[in-house]
């Protein structure tokens, strides 16, 4: 048996560890090393200390992208989970349509971001389906160049993100609902707890673990958003959809070949993801324990 054969155990683990060290740990360290050099298009470069980080702090484009990324993530996390929760609750209360409903709303999650971007670019086009629909509903004054206006483009992309993953959030919350003890819920309904009161005082606290998972996943995913702005707007108009990932990609692969500076912004992204996700998760976990 494996626990009496340490050498064999090591042999079982070795291939995975080797691959992980070579392709995750080593590149991670290399990324940190790159960020303190002046490497261009992959040349080794020379050591420049914290120069890239100093440049980062005074780089208006990067700071703007940081703001855009965080605002985008905040909106996506809140709206996507709220929609998902509402859908999960509605489906939980209607056992007959639960299966069909959750299958239909999961279809967008199967699509790649590239495909979703294709569909929505066309739907949101000036003469596309959304504007046609508004006109035919007599709301012609609301038609808009959604992706061409710096004040709406980011939120149009957020809408697509929410559309893709609302069904996913719903699946997480629905799993939370299915895990609830039915005795407790039955007792509550016998006691006459219904509607909003029942939701606030019974369901919401019991959904704490599902909330932790749903919020954390949406947060990490939306902070790392790349393909949607990359395909839908390429960062435009007027840089209004240039997220951190967009800037990193442009610096490294966009002709400039600024590997070192791109790696520095990537470190910023890593810190943002780890700090925001870590803080959010530990706050939500503490809340779980309180409940």
């Amino acid at each position, binding site marked *: 048996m*494996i*626990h009496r054969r*340490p050498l*064999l*155990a090591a042999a*079982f*683990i070795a*291939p*995975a560890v080797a*691959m992980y060290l*070579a*392709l*995750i*740990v*080593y*590149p*991670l360290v*290399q990324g940190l090393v*790159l960020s303190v050099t002046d490497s261009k298009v*992959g040349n080794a470069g020379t050591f420049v200390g914290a120069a890239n980080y100093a440049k980062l702090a005074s780089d208006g484009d990067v700071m703007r992208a940081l703001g855009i990324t965080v605002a985008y993530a905040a909106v996506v996390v809140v709206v996507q989970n709220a*929609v998902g929760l509402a*859908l999960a609750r509605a489906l939980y*209360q*209607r*056992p007959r349509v639960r299966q069909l*409903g959750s299958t*239909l709303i*999961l*279809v967008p*999650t*199967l*699509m*790649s971001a*590239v*495909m979703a971007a294709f569909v929505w*670019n*066309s*739907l949101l086009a000036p003469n*596309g*389906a959304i504007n046609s629909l508004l006109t035919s509903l007599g709301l012609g004054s609301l038609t808009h160049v959604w992706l061409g206006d710096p004040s709406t483009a980011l939120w149009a992309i957020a809408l697509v993100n929410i*559309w893709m993953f609302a069904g996913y959030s719903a*699946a997480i919350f629905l799993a939370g609902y299915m895990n609830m003890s*039915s005795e407790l819920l039955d007792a509550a309904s016998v006691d006459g707890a*219904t509607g909003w009161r029942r939701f606030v005082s019974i369901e919401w606290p019991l959904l704490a673990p599902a909330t932790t998972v749903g919020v954390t*996943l949406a947060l*990490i995913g939306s*902070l*790392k958003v790349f*393909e949607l702005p*990359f*395909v839908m707007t390429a960062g435009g108009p007027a840089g209004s959809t240039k997220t951190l990932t967009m800037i990193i990609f442009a610096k*490294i*692969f966009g002709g400039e070949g600024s*590997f070192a500076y791109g*790696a520095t912004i*990537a470190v910023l*992204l890593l810190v943002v*993801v*780890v700090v925001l*996700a870590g803080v959010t998760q530990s706050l939500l976990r503490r809340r779980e324990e309180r409940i």
Partner: protein
Amino acid sequence: MANTITSAYPIALRALRRAGGGVVRRGPLVLAGDVILVVVVILIFAPFAYTVVTSLRPAVDVINDPLGWPTSLTVDNIANAYSKINYTQGLISSTVVLVGTLVLTIVLGSLAAYPLARISRSWTTWVYRIFIAGSTVPIFVLIAPLYLLLRDLGLLNSYVGVILTYTAINLPVAIFFYTSFFRQIPIELEEAAAIDGSGPLRTFFVVLFPLLRPVTATLATFLTLSVWNDLLLPLVFFQDPALKTVMVNAYSLVGSYTLDPSLLFPAALLGVAPLLVVFAFLQRYIVSGLTMGAVKS
């Protein structure tokens, strides 16, 4: 007495549900909820349905009336998109990358998870923790060094480089999942196999690996979605047109055709079609495959 009441409750409630009572009492509010639910589900599903319908309408009709009911159907758009995005070639490339990643991740992940689950020493705990920590690292932190590494190893423009990278990225998920599953398998099974003279390797592949099937299916669903739909790695690592995946080929439409629904919609449909076909057979694993990332944290 108390027993009778508590056991009667669930039965009565189940009967109530069967009768259509559901978990909520019917009333005007619930009816409004029904309507809202139906509208929201339709709104979420509509863009996909619209994609299918628009793909099948003649281009002229779509331009004249984007929301119109289809009066005639055609497969011209799909045929056109098929050749514009080199679909056959993309399909082959995407499939090679996906299958390679699936096999490697499943084999290496389950092999490593076995001792990690069965041996509780400080070193196994550390190895496990370091693996799990890797799942939070954004690919953008690794992409430049990975590019340089694969370039130096001569693995740019090769299936091997991309497959190895995807495998490494997904090992944390695989190891997390297999480790928790191995812990649920009773150790008596291995002891019995050992008594029957089966060595650890044989026990792993013949006795344990078949038991992993449900986790493997869930993991495979998760991997299929993330690998098939990914743009970044193949875009950066494949320059040779013969290697480009479906997503990279589809992305090449952006720019020149960005707003042409009669090309983009069928292209989107072709991109998602293989997943829909595969998942039609694996339907019960979709939800678990999607939410397994959830269990991870």
